[in-house]
């Protein structure tokens, strides 16, 4: 993949008004400006309903912004979408029940402009080769999310936009999948934009955390996460880790945020 620039997502004064409902436009996003560097891991945090998911959808070209300029890998989001550059993964794993695990991972190869992919290798990357011929109904919640991750990576995207993918898992399952995700991220050099509610998850994963404010959302704070990589479970019990989590929780709960 040619690297034209070191910036994969560039948002300049991005704003979004939802269609007028009862003569009233609802402003979801306002004046959002940020850059995401290539192969960076950025987490978006914010109060619920503040428009985190909406921001992800604009990056993936599912919703068009109504103000400002959004550039995804050097192109407008809808063009980037048509080249499978930005791929979204959801809270629900969204697997197709009638397809085996391998067939689910292969789905991106069959849609859009017919592309090549390597489903078997992606499945190997998330450690599920043994389940290639199983059906989604036979898998646990964590395994389903790993299949969803393999499917997203099989698009060979530049940007992986993840909307609380591990929100429905229990704490140990979430920790395991965080490590899986970091490993896959390191191996593929993909840029990740990750939305979550969980402050510890954000701190554990991110290079940088963008904290959004209440709607209409603007960027409240941008926090650099200083911890070295590769990160492992020991980090979770580090006092500095706790301190940063507490700082961020305080920012989130302060009314000015």
């Amino acid at each position, binding site marked *: 993949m040619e690297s034209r620039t070191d910036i994969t997502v560039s948002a300049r004064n991005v704003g979004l008004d939802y269609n007028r409902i009862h003569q009233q436009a609802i402003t979801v996003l306002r004046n959002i400006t940020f850059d995401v560097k290539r192969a960076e891991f950025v987490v978006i945090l914010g109060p619920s309903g503040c428009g985190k998911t909406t921001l992800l*959808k604009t990056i993936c070209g599912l919703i068009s912004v109504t103000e400002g300029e959004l550039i995804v890998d050097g192109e407008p989001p809808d063009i980037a979408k048509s080249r499978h550059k930005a791929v979204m993964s*959801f809270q629900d794993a969204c697997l197709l029940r009638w397809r085996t695990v391998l067939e689910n991972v292969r789905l*991106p190869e*069959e849609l859009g402009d017919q592309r090549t992919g390597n489903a078997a290798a992606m499945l190997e990357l998330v450690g599920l080769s043994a389940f290639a011929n199983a059906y989604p109904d036979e898998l646990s919640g964590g395994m389903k999310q790993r299949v969803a991750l393999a499917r997203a990576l099989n*698009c060979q995207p530049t940007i992986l936009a993840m909307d609380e993918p591990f929100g429905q898992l229990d704490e140990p399952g979430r920790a395991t999948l965080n490590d899986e995700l970091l490993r896959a991220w390191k191996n593929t050099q993909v840029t990740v934009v990750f939305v979550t509610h969980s402050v510890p998850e954000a701190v554990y994963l991110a290079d940088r955390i963008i904290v959004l404010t209440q709607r209409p959302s603007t960027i409240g704070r941008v926090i650099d996460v200083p911890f070295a990589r590769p990160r492992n479970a020991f980090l979770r019990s580090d006092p500095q880790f706790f301190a940063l989590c507490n700082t961020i929780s305080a920012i989130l709960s302060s009314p000015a945020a």
Partner: protein
Amino acid sequence: MNRSIRSLLGQRVRHAAFGLCILIGALVVLETIVKFFHISSYLLPPPTTIFYKLFENWGTIAPHLMVTTVEALTGFLLATVIAICLAVCCLWFPTLEKLILPMAVILQTVPVIVLAPVLVITLGNGIASKVVIAALIAFFPTFINAARGLVSIETPHLELFQTLNANRWQTLLKLRVPTALPYLFASLRIAAANCYIGAVIGEWVSASKGIGYLAQVYLYQINIDLLYATVLTSSFAALAFAYAIGLVETLMCPWSRESLGTQRP
């Protein structure tokens, strides 16, 4: 995958065998009641007599059953194809649904027994009128369920297909149709029974062959044993058809909740 389909098929066969046992039990009870209370045979012939007459006259009944089956299956096929095509059209052109749905409901509320003579007059005494009546009566459930099934996808799935840049046909064939299949099969089983009813009603109004025609002949002869025997053959044929649809469902969508729903709490 093969093993799970085989076990699902085995389940279906076991269910059918169980149903058959219940049926045989009910017939034994009926036989006892008829014999014990000396019910006269033109009111309710004992099951053994009906089955005896059925075997004795199988040669006469079979060709008529064949005719009814051809009419019913052709009507079924016609109804299914039209219903699915219309459901897809309604999906892509929502205005069309507002037009078609009321018409379909009105058509469904008109009793077939009233429509049948009209159709026989317009389409003639032959097979065409019966096919159309069978199709009419099989159309409604299939259309409603197909239309419903095609829109029963979850929003995240649709968004997934959007982010993967799927076109309208890919979304239809790889997402909407597989989602709709369990809905469709549920209605196809209803339609399978309905289409036989439609064909027999058509024959009853006016025909020179078929189960409806033969039943009418036996009724006029007050040959009640054979009347029962004749009508039973079409019931069994409809039952077998509905059962076959169930088998096809198990083969085509083993993931369906209907098929998987056997492990109830």
